[in-house]
């Protein structure tokens, strides 16, 4: 399964918010076609990792490196990363009053297409593309005409993120706590949308606190992040074990040794 160079390769990554260190040496390699789950207790650095990959400036990288498709990811501004195929499904998608969801999607898609040397879609082609992807997330058409996330319910916001992902067709998608605040039905819909987007060319990193989401999006690899380090990596079963035994089980990384994270 793991042929060639990884799409994303993180080495001894340290990052801080202000002066407070959050990530303390993360190593992780993600290949095309793989689905990785990053799990961990609150405050372990999961969201920080997701935001550092996407390029959010408040998260300051203090040392280490991140390579993406062979290039230095950390040298790229966030919009370049996006155009190169990195997509972050936000934990708390923001509202943009007055800007229609459809207009926003079109601007984003055309920015990505221009970057890839493709023609911008005209309004009819775009409409057809969106309507087709809309079915993936079982979203109502009228949400497209409303302002971006403005007055959306928690579930609608999360679905909207997956819709954007479906339209933008990223190479590397990072889902930051996409399951938080979803009831079981919404969770199934969102998971089905994500599963439909699994492909040999695409890598997906699912960041989550709970195992529950992984019943629906089944990962190839599970990593446990504790205090800014990946203390354990394994297969699907690791998540189930975690659910049974709790994070306390992996809290002491040095003592456990065993399945240390491998790049």
């Amino acid at each position, binding site marked *: 399964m793991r042929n060639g160079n990884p799409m994303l390769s993180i080495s001894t990554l340290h990052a801080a918010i202000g002066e407070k260190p959050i990530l303390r040496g993360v190593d992780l390699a993600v290949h095309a076609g793989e689905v990785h789950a990053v799990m961990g207790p609150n405050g372990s650095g999961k969201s920080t990792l997701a935001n550092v990959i*996407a*390029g*959010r*400036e*408040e998260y300051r990288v203090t040392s280490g490196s991140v390579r993406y498709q062979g290039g230095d990811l950390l040298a790229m*501004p*966030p*919009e370049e*990363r*996006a*155009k190169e195929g990195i*997509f*972050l499904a*936000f934990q708390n*998608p*923001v509202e*943009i*009053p*007055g*800007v229609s969801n459809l207009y*926003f999607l079109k*601007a*984003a898609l055309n*920015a*990505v297409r221009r*970057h890839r040397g493709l023609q911008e879609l005209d309004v009819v082609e775009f409409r057809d593309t969106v309507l087709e992807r809309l079915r993936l997330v079982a979203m109502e058409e009228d949400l497209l005409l409303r*302002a971006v996330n403005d007055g959306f319910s928690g579930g609608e916001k999360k679905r909207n993120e997956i819709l*954007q992902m479906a339209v*933008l067709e990223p190479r590397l998608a990072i889902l930051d706590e996409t399951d938080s605040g979803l009831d079981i039905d919404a969770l199934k819909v969102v998971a089905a949308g994500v599963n439909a987007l699994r492909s040999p060319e695409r890598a997906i990193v699912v960041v989550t606190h709970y195992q529950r989401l992984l019943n629906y999006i089944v990962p190839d690899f599970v990593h446990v992040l504790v205090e800014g380090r990946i203390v354990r990596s394994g297969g699907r079963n690791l998540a189930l074990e975690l659910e049974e035994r709790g994070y306390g089980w992996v809290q002491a990384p040095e003592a456990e040794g065993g399945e240390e994270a491998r790049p």
Partner: protein
Amino acid sequence: MENAASQVKGWVEREYRWGFVSPVEADTIPKGISEEVIRTISARKNEPEFLLERRLKAYRQWQTMIEPRWSTVRYNPIDFQDIVYYSAPRGMKDRPKSLGEIDPELLRTYERLGISLIEQKLLAGVAVDAVFDSVSVATTYQKELAKLGILFCSFSEAVHLYPRLVEKYLGTVVPFNDNYFASLNSAVFTDGSFCYIPPGVRCPMELSTYFRINAENTGQFERTLIIADAGSYVSYLEGCTAPRRDTNQLHAAVVELIALEDAEIRYATVQNWYPGDKEGKGGIYNFVTKRGLCAGNRSRISWTQVETGSAITWKYPSVILKGDDSVGQFHGVALTNNFQQADTGSKMTHIGRNTRSTIVNKGISSGRGQNTYRGLVKVLKTAENARNFTQCDSLLLGDRCGAHTFPYIEVKNPTARVEHEASTSKIGEDQLFYCQQRGLSREDAVSMIVNGFCREVIRNLPMEFAVEAQKLLEISLEGSVG
């Protein structure tokens, strides 16, 4: 927020693209204001006696008045003796009979401003009256409009062609003693547009006036009068630009609208006077009185304005709702950048029964810009069942600008229902990052967020103007990559 701050700094680099000067020879009178100057202006325009009398009355009134100090705008005292009150492109004393007679430089000027005076090239469906400094240089589509009985011409022409209409309506909405700047205008106004729509006629095209200040040290005192007779409809657009200069120039206009029974007037402004440079030097002082009178029952007046220019903007387009069931609306966007100051809003006076009014104002402040919303909703005793809804939202970019809100409400009738909503927000790093994560540059993101913020107002503009207004907002945001 460091990033938003550096972004805002980028705004400061904004370019004013309309800042050129046209090499047009001008017929200019000496600086200063006096009865003699007013007599000269009136004589140059060959005005009837009644108008000169009104000018002199206004001038005497103005001399007894003091400059208003209640607004938040701060500026150096205006030396009214240092202003030229009349400047006309040479050869314009007798208005050219055809476009072929207009100075080619003038045609070029308007071409550069994106307004072609050559009729064939005009945007289909927009008739333009072009005012250059103190005089109107061309009015297009006049003949076609005349077939419908619509009178559309420069104010100076109207004085000669339709003196009775002018005498009957001029000063009925904004009296000569209304306020300091309106009185000054009533004394020295030079030109502007005049429009009369006869009963039952729906004006088939947008009427438009384009104001251009060119000459140095010249004040522009335009006067516009629009009368919509019973059951008629007109949509009117106004655009403005001026050259870039280090000195401040005064623009004190008066616009009067009168809607008779069942008539509707929609008046839209995109104001882009020179705003001054990034140190706050130069720029237009824009002191304007705009007021509409819903004289007849079921009449409607709507003001829409997008204000991105001027060093100082002081204007409160208002509606007097006299007729029963009449409707007044105001939708405004004011953007202040660098050292620009705006004190703007609206005034709705409810007199008739079942009168309704809406005020929607969007203020955007950046750089060291100061933006004030000032509004008055007044419900008189007679205004049974009056309704008002006011919403004013402020958007701040950076941390050196300011937004202020002064909503005044006076209600004398207990059946009135007056609602007021207000909000202040900042463009957040969250919003910018969200857009960037989807592939948009910071600059595009800011522009998108600002346009979204103004959407309610922009969509009130006629199509061509909406596009222009959006572009203008974008240009104002140029060079903002953080």
